[in-house]
Every structure is written in structure tokens, then in C-alpha cells.
């Protein structure tokens, strides 16, 4: 364990909790700075993201409007999708997963930098809390 792990996990958890983003940051930190293998980093990322969710989701659900029906549809359809994704992951080399992950990060970053979301967090309509 590196002493830097603790503040890094705290900061990435905080970024995730604010809604800025962060799930992929755990993988980037673990693979690029800690030398973890890609699949192991993804597994750790899932555990850590679940930990962040446990603490952040109740806070958000208590203060936001969330449709239970939409939630149910998204989760129900994600279940078979998850197994399909895992099957793809098992069928390709870990190096390819790493490159796909890198591409996904690039797209995500580009979208955040240059995308035009109607629902920007700073717009007046979203000041309601």
C-alpha cells in the first residue's frame, strides 16, 4: 500500500459523489500510477464505486426527483447487458480491453469538454435543490 492511496481514493470518491464523474478515474489511478493489471483495476473500481454509491445515493435520492419506473427499466435491462459485456471481456485479450477503456475515457472526456448538455449543472433551472 502507498500512503498516497488514501487521499487519492478520498478525492476520486468525492468527485464521483458530486456528479462530476469519477468511476473511470479509479481505473486510471490503479493502472497508470499503481501498476495494477487492467482487469484487477476494473474489479477494484467496481468495489470502490459501490462503496461511494452506498454513501452518496441515499443523499441524492432524498433530495432529487427520480422515477422508480425509469430506474427499474434501466437496471432490469442492464442485467443481461452486463453478462453480455462480461462475455465479450472474456473473449478478448486484456490488452484490448485496456485500449477500449482508453478510447471510452477519451470519448467521455471529449464529451464533457465539448458536449452541449441541455442540463448543465450551473443553469438556473437546476439551482433548485
Amino acid at each position, binding site marked *: 500500500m502507498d500512503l498516497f*492511496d*488514501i*487521499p487519492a*481514493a*478520498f*478525492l*476520486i*470518491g*468525492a*468527485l*464521483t*459523489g*458530486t456528479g462530476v*464523474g469519477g*468511476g473511470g478515474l479509479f*481505473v*486510471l489511478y490503479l*493502472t497508470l500510477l499503481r501498476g495494477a493489471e487492467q482487469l484487477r483495476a476494473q*474489479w*477494484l473500481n*467496481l468495489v*470502490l*464505486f459501490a*462503496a*461511494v*454509491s*452506498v*454513501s452518496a*445515493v441515499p*443523499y441524492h435520492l432524498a*433530495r*432529487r*426527483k*427520480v*422515477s422508480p419506473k*425509469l430506474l427499474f*427499466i*434501466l*437496471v*432490469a*435491462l*442492464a442485467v443481461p*447487458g*452486463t453478462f453480455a*459485456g462480461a462475455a*465479450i471481456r472474456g473473449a478478448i485479450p486484456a490488452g484490448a480491453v*485496456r*485500449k477500449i*477503456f482508453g478510447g*471510452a*475515457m*477519451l470519448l*467521455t*472526456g*471529449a464529451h464533457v469538454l465539448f458536449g452541449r448538455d441541455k*442540463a448543465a*449543472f*450551473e443553469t438556473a*433551472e437546476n439551482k433548485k*435543490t
Partner: protein
Amino acid sequence: MTLIPGNKGRASLRLAVLGGLFAGVVNGLLGTGAGTVFFFVAQRIYRDDPGIGAKDCFACAMAAVFPVSLLSLFTYPSVNAGSDLLPALLIPAALGGLLGAFLSDRIGQKTLKKIFAAVVVFGGAYMIAGS
């Protein structure tokens, strides 16, 4: 609040179904990314609903990604779960998540988003270019 406002119900339902499936595939493959897809889907569905904002869409995405992440965990049977890193990271990550949720109502996120984007673009490019 209804799932689909106005007469766009069928299109929104289709988007939710396809988005849910796609988010699962991405999360199953990469161990992350479902939240981004869920957020995009919720934004598209509620884009004409002035009563639903980005923070509501984010709450929906985060609530949906929690069970999906737990499920994804069980698709990694070959990964050594006994990580020495895990105990060190788990509690700080959870505390950070709680602080982040608390701060989400109190800080401007524009700059944070740009920093986040720059980091993931750099990291993504490095991962593609590296061996």
C-alpha cells in the same frame, strides 16, 4: 412525475430499454461507464421537462449504477479478490462519496468538470498509446 412526459412515451421507453442494455454491456466489459450512459438516457428522456434537472438525472444514474456494479463484480471470477489495496481504499472512497454528495449542492462544478475531462482524456490517450 411520469416516466415519459407528453406523447413521446414510446420513443423514451425505447431509449430507456436500449440505454439500459448498452450500459450493462459497457459496465460488464469495462467495469465502469454505466453511470455515464444512464445519465445520458435520463437527460434525453427529460430534456423537455423543466421540472427535472441535471441533478435529478445524476441521482437516477447513480441509483441505477449501484446494483449494476454489484452484479458486475460477480463476473470477475478469475481476478484475485484478496487485494491488499482494497481495505486502504474502501473507507476513504466512501467518505469522499459522502462529502461529494454534500458538496454537490454547494459548489460550482464547471471547473471540476473541466479538470476531470482533462484527466480522463490524458489517461485515455496514455492507455491507448501505451503497451
